[in-house]
C-alpha cells in the first residue's frame, strides 16, 4: 500500500500542511517542513516555487517570490524532498506544482526525479484533465499518485472524467477563488463533499480558505477525510522572517490549534475503504 493510501486508512480525518519549498530560504525551508511534521502534519504538500502562480492568493504568491529570490531551483526542491523524506520516512509527501516546471524539465525526467527523491504524489494546479494524458503515463510508470482537483464549478460529468484518472486522494477546492484565508467557508461545501463521495472511494481532502479550527471542524463534519491548510501557515513564516525561533513556535502552535478541530472518527467510511483497497 502506498504511503498516501496507508495514511488515510490509519487516520481519519488527516491534517495536511502546505509549504512552499525554499520559503523563506532553502535551509530554513527544511526546518519549516520538519517542524510541520513534528507538530502533527500528517501529510506535507510541498510547492515548487513558480514565477506566475495564478491559482494562488497574495500570501502564497509572496512565498513563491521569497523562495525564488532565495535562488530555489527545481533541483533544490528535489534535494529538499529527499532530506524531508529522511527525517520523516512515513509521512506522505506531495509535490504541488504549476505545469510549466514539468514541461520544461520533461515529464519523464520530472516524475523519475520526484520518485527518486521520495515523493508520493504530484498535484499540478493548472493542468486540467483534458491536457493531462502525457503526465498520467509517466506518473503511473514511476508509481507517483496523481492528485486530482475538483472545484465547486466542476460539472458532474467532468467530476466523473477527473475521478477516473485520479489516485492517492482527491483535492476538493472549497470555494470559487484563489488560495487564502477566509472568515467563512462556503455553505455549499458539505454538498460538494457529498456529491464527490458518491462517485469515488478515494479519500477526499478539502483546501482553499481553511484557516481556523472551526473551519477544520466543519470540513471534517462535512465528511471529508482531510483538511489542507496553506496560507494560514505560510503567513506565519512571513510574519517571523527575522525571528526563526518565533516562526517555529508559531507554526507548532497553529498546527496544534488547527488540529484540535479534527475529531477522530474511525467510522464506517474507513472500514469501507479498507475493504475496497483489500
Amino acid at each position: 500500500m502506498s504511503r498516501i493510501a496507508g495514511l488515510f486508512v490509519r487516520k481519519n480525518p488527516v491534517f495536511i500542511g502546505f509549504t512552499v519549498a525554499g520559503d523563506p530560504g532553502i535551509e530554513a525551508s527544511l526546518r519549516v517542513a520538519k517542524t510541520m511534521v513534528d507538530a502533527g502534519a500528517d501529510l506535507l504538500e510541498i510547492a515548487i516555487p513558480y514565477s506566475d502562480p495564478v491559482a494562488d492568493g497574495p500570501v502564497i504568491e509572496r512565498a513563491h517570490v521569497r523562495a525564488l529570490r532565495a535562488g530555489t531551483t527545481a533541483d533544490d526542491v528535489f534535494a529538499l524532498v529527499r532530506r524531508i523524506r529522511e527525517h520523516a520516512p512515513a509521512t506522505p509527501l506531495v509535490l504541488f506544482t504549476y505545469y510549466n516546471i514539468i514541461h520544461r524539465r520533461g515529464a519523464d525526467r520530472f516524475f523519475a526525479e520526484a520518485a527518486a527523491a521520495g515523493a508520493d504524489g504530484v498535484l499540478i494546479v493548472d493542468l486540467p484533465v483534458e491536457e493531462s494524458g502525457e503526465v498520467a503515463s509517466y506518473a503511473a510508470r514511476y508509481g507517483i499518485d496523481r492528485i486530482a482537483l475538483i472545484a465547486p464549478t466542476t460539472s458532474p460529468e467532468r467530476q466523473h472524467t477527473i475521478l477516473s484518472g485520479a489516485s492517492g486522494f482527491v483535492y476538493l477546492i472549497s470555494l470559487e477563488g484563489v488560495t487564502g484565508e477566509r472568515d467563512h467557508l462556503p455553505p455549499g461545501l458539505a454538498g460538494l463533499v457529498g456529491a464527490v463521495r458518491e462517485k469515488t472511494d478515494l479519500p477526499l481532502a478539502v483546501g482553499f480558505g481553511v484557516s481556523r479550527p472551526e473551519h477544520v471542524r466543519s470540513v471534517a463534519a462535512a465528511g471529508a477525510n482531510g483538511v489542507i491548510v496553506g496560507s494560514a501557515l505560510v503567513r506565519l513564516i512571513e510574519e517571523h522572517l527575522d525571528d526563526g525561533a518565533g516562526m517555529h513556535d508559531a507554526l507548532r502552535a497553529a498546527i496544534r490549534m488547527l488540529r484540535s478541530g479534527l475529531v477522530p472518527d474511525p467510522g464506517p467510511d474507513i472500514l469501507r475503504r479498507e475493504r475496497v483497497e483489500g
Partner: protein
Amino acid sequence: MKAGRYGIYGGQYVPETLMSALIELEETYERVREDPEFSRRLSWYLCEYAGRETPLTYCGNLSRDLGCRVYLKREDLLHGGAHKLNNTLGQALMAKFMGKHRLIAETGAGQHGVATAIAGAALDLPVEVYMGEVDTRRQALNVFRMELLGARVVPVASGTRTLKDAINAAMRDWVANLRETHYLLGSCVGPHPFPRVVRDFQSVIGEETRRQILEREGRLPDTVVACVGGGSNAIGIFYPFSNDDVTLVGVEAGGEGLESGRHGASLSAGSVGVFQGALSYLLQDDDGQALETHSVAAGLDHPSVGPEHAMLKDSGRVRYEAVTDAEALHAFRLLSRTEGIIPALESAHAVAYALRAADDLDRDDILIVNLSGRGDKDVADVASLHGGAI
C-alpha cells in the same frame, strides 16, 4: 487540428475552477458568431460608434524616401486611438449575450484598458482594469483616461509589476467571480477560446486592408508588417492574407538588443513553454520560470506570445524579426516628421522594420504597415527619455 490548438500550441492550462467559465465562453462564442442579431449589433458599434472602416493611407513622403509604395492601415484613427476597441466591443457585446454584469481586463500600455473602459461605458457594464504598478506610472495619462471613462484601475504590485502580473491578477479575480464577470482578455493569448475569439474580432483589420488595397492598387501587397507583443493587431491583419502570396512579418520588441537579454522577443529568442494558460513560445529560464522582459513600449513588454503566432513561426508562414528600442524611437520621430502621424511606440516597431525592409523592395512594391495605435500616450515618455519633461 484539435479544437483550441494551433499545431501543437494553445490548449487550456488553467486551474480547474476556470474550466467551467472557458467551456461556457466557448459555447457562447460558437452561438453568437452564428447569430445575425449579434453581428448586426457588433457591426453597428464598429461602424457608427468606433469609426470603421479605418483608412488605408498611402504615404507619399515615406514612399519617396524609402523607394517603395508604403501604406499605413490606420488603426490609430479608431475610436480610443488603437485597434484594441475591435476586440473589446466584440467581447463586451458577447458578455451581454452571456448575461454577465461586470467586465475585468488587464492592460500593459493602457490601450486595452482604455478600450475596455470605452466598451464598458458604451454597453453599460462596470469595468475594473488591472495594471502593473510600473505601467501605471509609465502610462499615467491612460490611467486618467480610464478613470474618466468610469473604470476602476487596480494597480498590481506583485511580481514584476507589469503586464504579465496584471494578467495574473485579472485571472485571480475571474476565478473568484466567474458567475457575474467576463474577463475581457486583450490579446490573442491565454487559454482557448481566447486566442481564437480575439483573432476573429481583430480580423476586421485584415479584411478591410485586403479589400482596400485591391480597390486602390488592383493587386495584393508584397509585404504586410505588424508589431507583435501578445500579437492581436498582427494576427488581425495577417489572418485574411493567410492563403495569399504575401510576405507577412511580425516585429517583436528587441529592447536593448537580443544579446543583452533585455527584450520582449519571445518568438525570436524564446523557447516552447506553458504560460498563462497556453503552450507557446516563452522567455523562460532552465526551470521554466518566466523571465523579466524589457521594451520601451509597455504593450510589447511581455514574456510570451499568442499560440497561433507560435504555429506561424514554425510553419514559416510568418517571419518574425526584432527591432530595438533605439530603432523604434527613431521610427517614432521619423513618421511624425515625414507624414504628420505620431505612432504608438508599439506600432513604431513595425514602422522601424519597414525602414529596414525597404532596402530590398522595388519602387513598385507595396508595403503595408499596420499602424495599430497612435502615439499621444507616449509623447511625455519619449520627451523624458531625451531629458525633457512635459
